[in-house]
């Protein structure tokens, strides 16, 4: 019994990590219908920023991420304002190709700056600590923290969306950008702010990515795919749905790995495809399209 409970717990907590990957993607698509193909690479970029800050200032990753967050917010704001805002419109090819090009640039830029070596964010003793749940079960503190952070991030985002004036502006712009302008909302600034918020979530995702396992400049695209799968499974417009989607992918991967280690990633994809065939709009769709 315990033999199956363990991967179950692991899967759920891995789901927290994938939900963190996906939350930023979900937000951006929800507000501006932009699918950022460079999203995974931006997570990796953020991880390197945290690494650099931690190294330069001799900080632990948590503090480094705290310092890096505003920097990444500003980066996201600038990226959207200067580049990505120009791609928005009715045609889907420009944002796709521009973010595709961006993905290649970020990956290779990181390769140039940091080489292909694997890196890790070192958090010290907390990495290996575990919490006993009784009955012979234990969970790692780090995975638990990751899941908790995902939940907190989603709570914070929902608070922003549903209880603040800025959140109202996000939702209005997402509904009807033209009429939103009539309210005095400057779309370009709203989109840039949204990207800034997304990059802040990316910073948190990068923190846990970097502490959990080794990372290098090429792992971006795979993170994009997991994030995307979580968003689709969860359904558009629902951040809790994205969490559920992440958990499903995490569970599928962990259970698949138990059956055969080589099947881990494939199991995640298969779970995604099954949900896609049975429920094309996702499990908890909310947004009006």
């Amino acid at each position, binding site marked *: 019994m315990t033999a199956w409970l363990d991967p179950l717990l692991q899967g759920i907590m891995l789901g927290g990590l994938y939900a963190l990957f996906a939350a930023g993607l979900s937000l951006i698509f929800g507000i501006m219908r932009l699918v950022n193909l460079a999203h995974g690479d931006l997570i990796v970029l953020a991880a390197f920023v945290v690494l650099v800050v931690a190294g330069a200032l001799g900080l632990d990753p948590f503090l480094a991420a705290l310092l890096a967050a505003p920097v990444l917010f500003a980066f996201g704001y600038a990226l959207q304002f200067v580049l990505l805002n120009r791609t928005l419109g009715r045609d889907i090819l420009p944002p796709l190709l521009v973010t595709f090009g961006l993905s290649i640039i970020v990956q290779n830029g990181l390769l140039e700056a940091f080489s292909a070596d694997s890196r890790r964010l070192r958090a010290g003793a907390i990495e290996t600590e575990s919490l006993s749940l009784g009955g012979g079960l234990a969970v790692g503190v780090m995975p638990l923290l990751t899941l908790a952070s995902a939940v907190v991030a989603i709570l914070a985002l929902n608070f922003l969306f549903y209880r603040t004036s800025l959140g*109202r502006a996000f939702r209005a712009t997402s509904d009807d950008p033209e009429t939103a302008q009539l309210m005095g909302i400057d779309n370009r600034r709203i989109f840039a702010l949204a990207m800034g918020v997304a990059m802040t979530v990316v910073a948190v995702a990068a923190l846990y990515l970097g502490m959990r396992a080794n990372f290098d400049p090429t792992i971006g695209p795979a993170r994009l795919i997991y994030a995307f799968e979580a968003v689709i499974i969860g359904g558009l417009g629902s951040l809790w749905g994205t969490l559920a989607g992440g958990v499903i992918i995490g569970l599928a991967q962990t259970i698949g790995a138990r059956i055969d280690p080589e099947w881990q990633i494939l199991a995640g994809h298969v779970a995604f495809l099954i949900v896609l065939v049975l429920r094309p709009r996702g499990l908890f769709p909310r947004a009006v399209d």
Partner: protein
Amino acid sequence: MLETRGLTAFYGDFQALYGIDASLAQGETVAIIGANGAGKSTFLKAITGLLPSPPDAVRLDGAPIGGLAPARVTRLGVSLVPEGRKLFPSLSVEENLLIGAYGRAPGGYWSLERLYALFPALAERRRAPGPSLSGGQQQMAAIGRALMANPRVLLCDEISLGLAPIVIRDIYNAMPAIKAQGTSILLVEQDIVQAMAVADRVYCFQEGRVSLAGRPAELSGEQIHAAYFGT
């Protein structure tokens, strides 16, 4: 206060307005009537910047505002109640009202309480999602949303469209309260009777041009008919 001079407007290659000269004085209520496709809504869109125009073609208090981004025009005190209401589906009624005040400096007459006093039906449905309201209630919400910005100039685009006469009357009964704040009102109306009843002056558009202008009392039925249909 607000005037247009030689205002033209295009949808791609199609010309919708052929040089409109019009004015709106402080505190005045001006109605624009005309058949479908005459360019009335286009006129309002051009004023608010949803359609491009040369800077001088539209002046607010003498300053050129033609072609400015709609968000800026709104912040200058010109609010549009758009054709078709266009409430935000993801927002509740109250949130729709609140978003009308986005970025507007605090102070000014209109607030949530005062709007609920003006349109009591909205107060009852304040937490309901926008689209769940009846057509008339949606129109009230759209007007209230524009008023939350405490505009100096209120533009109304076909607020009677698709509504039953009794509902239209209810909505127009709110006009005196709006006028009492000194707001200048420019309204586009299909309902000629209602327009003439509430306006100080009237313009009639016909195929993108002004075909008639004057005070309601001075215009005869035949004049209006001719200007409307272009005979």
